[in-house]
């Protein structure tokens, strides 16, 4: 199996902040809005360097989303940032009508997504956001896997015309994708080649799946690992091609099973090529306070859960 190495750990939200800062230097149409979480979203560099293009929205997310939609008219490219829960559920109708239905060029930038937010607990650990956003027509949904990919994705979505939901997280995790990668929206990234099963992973679970692949390889199981950084539009060809070969699937994500990557893949396979699927995801429960590692273990979204799901699906082949 291909070796994956990393020299440092970094949070994906810093990838967003650094990408946004570079965009600011390059593209005068890029503006940023934030709802009193500038430090948490690492937007300080942009805010300090381009104060005339940074709109502090206060703790008023509904107004921020509406204002972002308004700013697109005339050509600005607003990046509106807050925690994932407040960026989706809190303002769902503003997003639905003023951004998605109106097809406005707003980039919704959602940090601290998922259970790895940790100690703050369930009120802040949204695991429904991918589902909420992918259900909206016109919405693109992206969940990159590490610092470098988040930075590349942040820059790439400025060149795409249309609403985007960009999801990233709080904890420092291994940086293992190339710094110079070209980010292609809607294009899956194959990480390993294998024949026994395919793991489709997104976000923080991509690294966990790499760890799982190392364990599975020692057990003589050949895994094809594919990073689905764009959940919508889904790279259907990549999914179907791999599954035609391996005939068994594990999906892995830091999200509810309902509404996540897993059910997008399962829906595609049910329609096109019915195949056994096991899902690594949170099963219809709210989270709680704890360290990210404790919570990933308790709620079944870590490398161990991926290994167990792989073994289950092979028995169903």
């Amino acid at each position, binding site marked *: 199996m291909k070796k994956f190495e990393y020299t440092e750990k970094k949070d994906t939200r810093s990838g967003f902040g650094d990408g946004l800062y570079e965009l600011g230097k390059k593209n005068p149409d890029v503006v940023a809005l934030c709802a*009193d979480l500038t430090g948490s979203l690492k937007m300080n560099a942009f805010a300090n360097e381009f104060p005339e293009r940074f709109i502090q*929205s*206060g*703790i008023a997310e509904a107004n921020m989303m509406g204002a972002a939609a308004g700013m697109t008219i005339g050509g600005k490219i607003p990046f509106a940032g807050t925690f994932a*829960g407040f960026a989706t559920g809190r303002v769902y109708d503003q997003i639905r009508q003023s951004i998605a239905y109106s097809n406005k060029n707003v980039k919704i930038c959602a940090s601290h997504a998922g259970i790895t937010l*940790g*100690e703050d607990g369930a009120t802040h650990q949204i695991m429904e956001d991918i589902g909420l956003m992918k259900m909206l027509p016109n919405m693109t949904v992206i969940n990159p896997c590490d610092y470098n990919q988040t930075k590349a994705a942040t820059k790439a979505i400025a060149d795409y015309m249309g609403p985007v939901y960009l999801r990233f997280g709080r904890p420092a995790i291994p940086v293992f994708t190339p710094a110079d990668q070209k980010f292609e929206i809607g294009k899956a990234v194959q990480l390993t080649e294998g024949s026994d099963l395919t793991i489709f992973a997104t976000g923080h679970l991509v690294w966990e799946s790499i760890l799982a692949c190392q364990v599975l390889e020692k057990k003589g199981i050949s895994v094809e690992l594919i990073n689905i950084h764009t959940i919508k539009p889904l790279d259907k060809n990549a999914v179907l091609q791999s599954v035609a070969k391996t005939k068994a699937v594990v999906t892995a994500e830091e999200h509810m099973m309902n509404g996540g990557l897993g059910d997008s893949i399962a829906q595609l396979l049910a329609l096109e090529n019915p195949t056994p699927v096991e899902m690594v995801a949170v099963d219809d429960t709210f989270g709680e306070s704890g360290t990210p590692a404790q919570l990933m273990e308790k709620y079944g979204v870590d490398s161990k859960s991926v290994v167990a799901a792989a073994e289950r699906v092979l028995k169903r082949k």
Partner: protein
Amino acid sequence: MSNADSGKLKEIAFNIRKEVLKSLHQAQSGHLGGSLGLADIFTVLYFHFLNHKPKNPSWPERDRLILSIGHVVPVQYASLALAGYFPKEELYTLRKLGSRLQGHPGKSHGLPGIELSSGSLGQGLSIAVGMAIAAKADKKAHRIVSIHGDGELQEGSIWEAAMSASHYKLDNIIAIVDRNHKQIDGDTKSVMQIEPLTDKWKAFGWNVLMCDGNSIEDIIITLQNADKCKDKPSVVIAETKMSKGIKEIEDNHQWHGKVPGDDEIEKFIHALTK
């Protein structure tokens, strides 16, 4: 009230601050500044103003306390423990896996004295409105006290609730605004101006009272006055200092979401005065 009574309450406020410091120190994450700033208000509420029974937390006649700013819950946990709702030792499980003391209050975790889950801002006043309407419908005399941040008032939903509270003449609500002039990104006046605050609440039909939110005596008198108001909801704009009690870090917004380190905890506890 007598000097002896007020001395007793100051002692309790001191102990609440000490427990806030200790529980956040062991947790190594959470929100110290607002929790310390509210210690005097929580002391008056739980040890003087509210009708409640720590051994019977669901007593139907109890006054309801709604913490709309869930992130300062360490001050509520410390108050509940010292009032006898649960053993003090449990405070040191704050934010740990499996604890009833969630980082933001989680109703389903079963901690006595918690009325609802909160943490996402701007929702508590609507809950208070619902409780107040229900109490009036049932001809119950209990009061509803809700606690809000000044930054939280930037949420539009607060003003939807404010409008309905005066529309329904909910004089059984007292909303307390923790006016520390700070929020995560800095001073409220630079992040998003909320003044003229008194005029805003008045325009929404509320009885508005001001007080020194770090003075036990002033908090007591103000709440008594709020209680007397009929046919209108009351809001108390309580001027407080973030991190009140520890001079070194008072009024510094960087302590919104910070906790004392190993090198600071003894110094901070020592700095507290009764």
